[in-house]
């Protein structure tokens, strides 16, 4: 097979919706489909279209721990969207295409490691499922994720918070003004992976100019320092000036230039709910840019509506860039300080709200600091919803776990089970690539 510039997995899931009037519904990619068909891009010699497969349960459980299990929470549509991301990743890793774009729905970047329900329209994390599949089956090591959705990719951040091999960069509308209310500069990763979570919270009204300053002066240099084997773009499109759920002023041209400069190996669609005014143009711009084609003529009919970026915003972004560059330069020192501060165990408590399912989750998370491996993590989780209460204890054993961490993690789960304060007990073992359910409630 001759190598193509771009593999495209287009899966608009025309028979699936969260609910009839939910923004995440059948109509979401209808206008994008019309635009792509009308442009004739699927007939271009640079582009090959792929059909998504169904992601296996094992692909999902490599990343997620569903309480009580994923089967009750995950629909076929989620497995197909994840399968679409995997298909895109495989096209690139096998050398069939130089890059790939998984234009799939539903999205996934708000889905965390532990899943009790659906939050921010997301149930499982498409990018993480793809990355872990590629690590398992295609020998991929270091990965960088650049999340360009307007909302902070808190799910992806959570999954990779303790993984030094995965750099997670997210720029988004500041969490003080938008869902999910996280993604601040202080969130930088657990001690073992300190600095590999890199948040860039942007002010309301950021336009193409601000976005590209951030890209040129922060994102691209940071990526160059990290030297990933693979760059993944969580390609949300809600920074667009017409998006109904956010307040930014980016255009299709801004997104096209972003895709061209970023040169991501795989882009996966995330959010974007201006389904008529933005998505047809932004998706087309990204697709053409990724395929190395001229996207300069992709201009929204109502572009004069896009407000100019104010001087205040520009100044704020300048300062933010300075601060973030400084932090990145000092990351090794900061990491040492962080490790010294925590000793041999890091921990945090937090609440997670599942807005689509109306579930409140309380989490206590611990991370073992280890000189021989990345250390294991324990998660004590309980949630409240219409079902009453659910609670679980899980241990996560890293890919490179040492004997001691392996033993400690298993002991922790067994002693939690003996204490009997939870309904479910899990060991997610990245070494053996399996999720064990330990006794507990069936």
């Amino acid at each position: 097979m001759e190598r193509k510039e771009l593999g495209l997995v287009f899966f608009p899931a025309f028979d699936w919706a969260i609910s009839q009037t939910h923004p995440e519904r059948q109509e979401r990619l209808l206008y994008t489909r019309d635009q792509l068909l009308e442009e004739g891009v699927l007939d271009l010699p640079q582009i090959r279209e792929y059909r998504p497969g169904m992601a296996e349960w094992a692909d999902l459980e490599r990343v997620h721990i569903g309480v009580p299990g994923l089967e009750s929470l995950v629909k076929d549509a989620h497995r197909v969207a994840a399968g679409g991301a995997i298909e895109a990743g495989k096209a690139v890793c096998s050398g069939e295409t130089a890059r790939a774009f998984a234009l799939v729905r539903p999205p996934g970047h708000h889905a965390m490691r532990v899943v009790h329900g659906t939050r921010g329209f997301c149930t499982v994390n498409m990018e993480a499922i793809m990355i872990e599949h590629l690590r398992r089956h295609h020998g991929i090591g270091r990965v960088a994720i650049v999340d360009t959705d307007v909302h902070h990719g808190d799910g992806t951040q959570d999954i990779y918070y303790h993984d030094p091999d995965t750099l997670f960069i997210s720029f988004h509308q500041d969490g003080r003004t938008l869902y999910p209310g996280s993604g601040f500069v202080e969130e930088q990763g657990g001690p073992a992976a300190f600095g590999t979570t890199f948040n860039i919270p942007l002010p309301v009204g950021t336009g193409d100019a601000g976005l590209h300053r951030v890209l040129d002066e922060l994102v691209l240099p940071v990526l160059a320092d990290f030297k990933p084997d693979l760059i993944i773009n969580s390609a949300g499109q809600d920074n667009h000036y017409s998006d109904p759920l956010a307040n930014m002023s980016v255009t299709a041209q801004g997104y096209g230039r972003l895709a061209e400069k970023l040169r991501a190996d795989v882009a996966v669609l995330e959010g974007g709910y201006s389904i008529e005014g933005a998505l047809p143009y932004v998706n087309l711009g990204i697709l053409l840019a990724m395929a190395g084609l001229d996207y300069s003529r992709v201009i929204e009919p109502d572009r004069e509506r896009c407000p100019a970026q104010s001087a205040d915003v520009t100044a704020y972004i300048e300062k933010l860039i300075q601060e973030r560059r400084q932090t990145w330069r000092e990351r090794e020192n900061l990491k040492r300080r962080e490790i010294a501060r925590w000793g041999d165990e890091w921990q945090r408590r937090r609440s997670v709200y599942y807005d689509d399912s109306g579930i409140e989750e309380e989490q206590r998370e611990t991370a073992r600091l280890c000189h021989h491996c990345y250390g294991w993590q324990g998660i004590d989780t309980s949630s409240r919803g219409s079902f009453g209460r659910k609670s679980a204890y899980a241990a996560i054993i890293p890919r490179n776990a040492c004997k001691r961490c392996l033993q400690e993690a298993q002991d922790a789960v067994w002693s939690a089970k003996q204490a009997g304060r939870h309904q479910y007990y899990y060991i997610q073992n990245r070494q053996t690539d399996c999720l064990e359910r330990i006794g507990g409630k069936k």
Partner: protein
Amino acid sequence: MLLGIDVGGTFTDAVAVADGRVLETVKVPTTHDDLLVGILAALDHIVSRCPRQISRVALSTTWVTNAVVEGKLDPVELLVMAGPGLNLSGLLPVTPRFLTGYVDHRGIQVQAPDDGELQQRIPKTADSVYAVSGKFSVRNPDAEQQLNAWLKEHRQAEHVTLGGKLSGSLNFLRRTNGAYFNAAVWRRFKDFEAAINQALAARDIIAPLVILKADGGTMPLTAAGEMPVEAIFTGPAASVMGIQALTDCRGTMVSLDVGGTTTDLALWQDGQPLLAAGGAFVERYPTAVRAFQLLSVGVGGDSEVRLAGEEVVVGPLRRGPAMANGGTVPTLSDAMIVLEEASFGSRKLAEAAMDQLALPGLTVREKAETVLQAAARQVVVAIRQMLLREETKPVYRVAEITQPVILDLQGVIGVGGAAAPIAKRAAALLGAACVLPEHGEVANAIGAAVSRPTLEINLRADTVAGRYSVGELGLEAALPVGVRTVAAVTDFAKQLLCQRATELKMEQGESEVVSLESFPVVKGFNRSGWIYQCRMQLTPGVLMRLEEA
């Protein structure tokens, strides 16, 4: 009786059929300098033998294909209104003029064509033909129609092809390419049309004259005069329709038309040959011309046979005729002659041809069998590829992924001069039945004779805006009251299709829904209406099936 005439590369065939029987067939050499000479010779032969009332004359001709392949194309002024999107520079067969004016995906005309710009940019050349194509013109034909009217008025344009009338499907690139080729063959085809009409009138034949299209359907010659590009690639299409008339295809089948240098494969599901997604490629340009999904393999009777290491390779080159006919290299036909599965030329020379192959320890017959097996294996590889491509083609609904269509090949159908030996062995390798219809040698002409008309319309109805559009009809208008549900939209589409068929003077048969999509539209947090997209067509197929003779 129905008359069918098929102009091929070598022979022009004609048949007369009636009451499910073939009454008469004839083969005359194709007259390349003037196709009409051969067409009329074949016609006269049939008419003189069958003095019955002719109810329809159907012509399948390579006329358009030849014009394109031989570059006998008129210069075309290609005008595009591309709006925002892909830069088409370098993607079209000729350099277009990009003009102001476009429609967006909702069918809203964002910008109208600009008269001043037209005056300035469109040269005043005598007897130019024009092709006009606008983005999303199938959602709103205004821009294309305005340009058409302007060209007629200010440039006295004799002919303007509108992309949106050529196809009502979304794909601006394909419509633009199709419109260009249509305009480029329009004038010469007009001359051909006039000559045929004159010749039939001189013979007192008053039966309707129809022409075969790339999708195996027929259209009246008068309609073809405006859309000649539709009559491209009719050779393979005629053969596919012939197969439909001569066999009882059920389930998944593959048909092989084995010619001199290639084998054309078509894929069948539930008795229907599948169409190519999007349309046919002309030269190397994707167009919106409806055509069968065909795969061509470089294996034919005259294909050269050689050894690559210990492997026998058949084709894809032809280095002259079979050695049995005085050629210089072993061919597939030579292998068939040795095994008595073909009979022409010198058997001795065919045996010498097989003997040349350095396959130690094998007799001449065994060598010939090895060659035929190798050819069949090459065809089987292509068949599997075709099935796989169909099974893995992109789909857009979850249900189509969770319950995928698995194609279980039931039969291999062979037509054409050298089909039987290849079809038989390919079927055996695939564990499928082999079907070899009678009259396979004139399947093309039979296909033309009995093929039904095809016509398609694409209706898009938006109940929120209260508007509908049909590209093929150049319509964008208020949606009639009462057309708000799937059932009503389907009925409405049917009504529009019948109207169109009547206008084109096509015989009316059944119609069917090709695809129907409905999307709830939400504004704020309430459903405000639906968008329906309905593709409706006259049911394609054959007017009669032919019994085994």
